């Protein structure tokens, strides 16, 4: 039976109880109802109704039975625009063929967590989406019962058809939609039982598929409007610099250029949320008639830059204030590495300690110590940053790709001097997110530009702007130590992890809880290079480091790497070390994915010539284990196959979830193997794909198989969890294939290896 977790949000849940029959009853009230502006049919073949009847903020039903379902969250490639409406449709009991999906605008009264972040789109809206569908189903049944003068309990709803068996009456949803829309929203409704799901758990194709393969306008960069101007910005070439002066006249006469000026994104006293922040507050703006003309003019602009002083800024992050220091000066990658390696003890903080690790290390018969590192990374969404705005005297319309419309609204309001309620933000489909579009400075920029130009404006970044603007995945460093006694038992475990500017440590994750003497410490190094969340923040490094180190421990102990992990997890499940509840993970579910991947990869019987590495990790409430197979071809390691086992609770859309698993695997191999952003004198040394290496087609695994643990648990994260562990599986397989351990990403730089 489904586990219900009632969330306190803008929508109040009045009560929550179970029916004797096993169904679920939920009481709630809708505070608001949404009136979408654009009714756009996404499934082109469907015939549109003459009249729509709005049942609640998530859906409306046409007089011909076609249903429009709103997808509230930003679509960045995680496929929520298909999977979120599937949940509504299942509870509504409508044929998926009769569903059209519409992107909802930002509506903080109606929807909660309209964010693409933390792999939480599905999990945070799971109950709301189900209730939206179930409420509508209930109201349709009530409308039929009233029309036919029969008890509502005798009316059934299946596949968009309402029927009453005793009288033989039946009607399509379209026929009852008008009556249903006039009914009061019920106080209580029954949700389906999991076993009765007919859409959830079945693979449904991407609702935008046909538009994608025919090149229809879907993305922010595709927005066109009557009278629209194109803008682009110029930011300092190096971190630690700001604008000194520029010569607008040098480019104003160029063809198609309308204006050249500067904007400031916020005044010094503006209380910034961490997501508003950017390294470059003052920017030069070039506005013109077409993109190419604007890009050309930018290149020709004469600018002088000067050094920034040290800045300390206060920012809020989910209600907590924090002080952040950005030192003065131009930074270099060599200095970064040195600072991470030679961290002074005064900067190290203990995050967790169990038992007596100091004594265990002192008395150890043997100690192994290994250090791991990774560089800064640029998100490099395939669609560069862009946004559209049309600002008038008292109103602002914004449209484009953003992962956090709600969090950016205050900064837009501030820069324009227009109240929040007059700011209207809509989302397009987005050419990738990976965390980059959580930081929406570009929304503030385009709003300010449109206000100044008194015209609709689309802001477009070049790839170089996008890659050199900041908000990178931090550079991380971790040193692990393990102590063994004379019988080669593992007696203590120590991790010291840090980064620029944040630590990647999760002190309470595995193997915490599985080892008696455990010490986790962290440290940070300040920098003026701005960083931000990058797909599975912190996990995206620490998982690979930890899983590589566990591999070495297992080898040291002469144990099979899966058996060794399972032994530790058994300990964590049966007799966990540490305070009760202090361990973040569920050891049994963790073991479950390892057992599943062992079976599905046929772990014990690898084909001859196949070198295998395993890894398993928990993040975003989901568990992923992966086995990666390498075959040496002409002395070069080639990734032949990856087998993944995933426990993410109920899987809404299995084939789409497999696609995310495949993407996570390829993304993880790519970044661990090839990518990195380095600095010289504050300047990124890579600014486009000629020098910044992303994984390419040939380097991807030949085959990826994904298996899901059958589960009745409410859905947990899926966009991020498959990404971090594969880096460990890759390093471990490379060791088996080449005899060489890989500690420092990108691995390609450690030795000339290309898969």
């Amino acid at each position: 039976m489904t586990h219900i977790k009632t969330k306190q949000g803008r929508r109040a849940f009045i009560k929550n109880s179970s029916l004797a029959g096993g169904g679920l009853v939920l009481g709630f009230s809708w505070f608001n109802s949404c009136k979408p502006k654009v009714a756009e049919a996404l499934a082109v073949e469907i015939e549109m109704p003459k009249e729509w009847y709005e049942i609640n903020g998530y859906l409306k039903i046409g007089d011909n039975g076609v249903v429009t379902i709103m997808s509230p969250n930003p679509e960045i490639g995680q496929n929520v625009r298909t999977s979120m409406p599937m949940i509504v449709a299942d509870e509504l009991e409508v044929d998926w063929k009769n569903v059209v999906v519409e992107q909802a605008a930002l509506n903080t009264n109606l929807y909660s967590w309209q964010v693409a972040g933390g792999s939480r789109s599905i999990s945070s809206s799971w109950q709301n989406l189900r209730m939206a569908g179930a409420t509508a189903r209930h109201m349709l049944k009530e409308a039929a019962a009233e029309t036919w003068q029969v008890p509502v309990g005798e009316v059934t709803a299946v596949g968009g058809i309402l029927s009453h068996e005793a009288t033989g009456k039946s009607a399509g949803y379209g026929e009852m939609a008008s009556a249903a829309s006039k009914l009061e929203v019920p106080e209580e409704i029954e949700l389906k039982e999991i076993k009765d799901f007919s859409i959830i758990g079945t693979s449904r194709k991407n609702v935008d598929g046909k538009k994608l393969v025919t090149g229809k306008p879907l993305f922010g960069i595709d927005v066109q409007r009557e009278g629209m101007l194109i803008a682009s910005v110029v930011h300092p070439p190096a971190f630690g610099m700001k604008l000194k002066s520029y010569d607008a006249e040098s480019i104003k006469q160029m063809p198609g250029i309308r204006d050249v000026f500067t904007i400031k994104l916020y005044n010094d006293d503006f209380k910034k949320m961490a997501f508003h922040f950017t390294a470059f507050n003052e920017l030069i703006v070039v506005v013109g008639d077409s993109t190419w003309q604007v890009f050309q003019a930018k290149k020709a602009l004469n600018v002088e830059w000067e050094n920034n002083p040290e800045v300390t800024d206060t920012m809020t992050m989910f209600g907590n204030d924090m002080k952040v220091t950005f030192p003065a000066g131009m930074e270099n990658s060599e200095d970064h590495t040195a600072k991470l390696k030679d961290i002074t003890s005064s900067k190290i903080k203990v995050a967790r300690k169990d038992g007596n690790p100091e004594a265990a290390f002192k008395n150890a018969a043997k100690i192994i110590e290994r250090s791991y590192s990774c560089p800064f990374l640029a998100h490099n969404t395939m669609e560069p940053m862009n946004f559209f705005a049309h600002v008038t005297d008292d109103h602002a319309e914004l449209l484009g790709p953003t992962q956090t419309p709600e969090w950016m609204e205050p900064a837009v309001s501030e820069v324009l001097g227009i109240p929040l309620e007059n700011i209207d933000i809509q989302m397009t489909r987005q050419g990738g997110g990976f965390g980059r579009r959580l930081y929406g400075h570009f929304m503030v920029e385009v709003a300010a530009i449109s206000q100044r130009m008194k015209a609709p404006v689309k802001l477009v970044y070049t790839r170089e702007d996008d890659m050199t603007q900041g908000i990178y995945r931090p550079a991380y460093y971790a040193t692990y130590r393990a102590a063994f006694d004379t019988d080669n038992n593992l007696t203590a475990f120590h991790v010291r992890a840090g980064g620029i500017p944040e630590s990647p440590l999760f002190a309470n994750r595995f193997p915490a809880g599985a080892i008696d003497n455990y010490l986790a410490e962290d440290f940070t190094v300040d920098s003026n290079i701005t960083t931000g969340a990058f797909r599975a923040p912190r996990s995206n490094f620490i998982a690979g480091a930890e899983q590589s180190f566990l591999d070495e421990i297992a080898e040291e102990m002469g144990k099979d790497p899966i058996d060794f992990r399972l032994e530790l997890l058994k300990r964590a499940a049966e007799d966990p070390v540490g305070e009760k509840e202090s361990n973040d993970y569920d050891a049994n579910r963790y073991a479950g994915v390892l057992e599943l991947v062992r079976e599905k990869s046929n772990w014990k019987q690898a084909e001859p010539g196949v070198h295998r590495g395993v890894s398993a990790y928990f993040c975003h409430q989901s568990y992923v284990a992966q086995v990666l197979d390498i075959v040496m071809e002409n002395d070069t390691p080639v990734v032949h196959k990856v087998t993944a086992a995933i426990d993410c609770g109920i899987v809404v859309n299995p084939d789409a979830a497999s696609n995310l698993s495949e993407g996570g695997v390829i993304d993880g191999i790519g970044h661990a193997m090839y990518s990195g952003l380095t600095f010289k004198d504050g300047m990124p040394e890579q600014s486009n794909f000629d020098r910044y290496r992303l994984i390419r087609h040939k380097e991807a695994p030949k085959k990826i198989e994904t298996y899901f643990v059958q589960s009745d648990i409410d859905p947990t994260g899926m966009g991020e969890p498959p990404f971090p562990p594969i880096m460990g599986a890759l390093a471990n397989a490379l060791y088996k294939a080449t005899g060489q351990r890989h500690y420092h990403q990108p691995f390609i730089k450690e030795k000339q290896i290309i898969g």
Partner: protein
Amino acid sequence: MATFSIHINGSTKNIDVDPSTPMLWVLRDHFNLVGTKFGCGIAQCGACTVHLGENAVRSCQLPISAVGEQHITTIEGLSENGDHPVQQAWLEVDVYQCGYCQAGQIMTASALLKKNPNPTEEEIEGAMNGNICRCGTYTRIKKAVKKAAEINQNT
């Protein structure tokens, strides 16, 4: 500025732009054909791939002055009803994640299959290697190219 007559997706369009303007921006800003995507602007990612005659080319590096009488086909003109075998295969395999790179992938794949209707796995990898997919849909792309070859052979 200069006037150009461009054969595109079966029709001819006239346009007055600077001769150095890349076709990518002519398509997107002037012809309102935004299916062709901007990814890097330096011929490294393949997002802007179109057909020039029968060849897959990077439109970000193709100045309008170099087009002449050659025909350009964009994703919008690949088929009338979106049912080119490559488009069918893409729909069947449900290749895309964010989808941004896919127009370029489809244009590269359709040019490959025109020249080589039955490519080996290695030939597919070779032809598709210039198209970056940041989301990592490469295994699905390969599967869809093979499927498109099959569809071609059965029709």
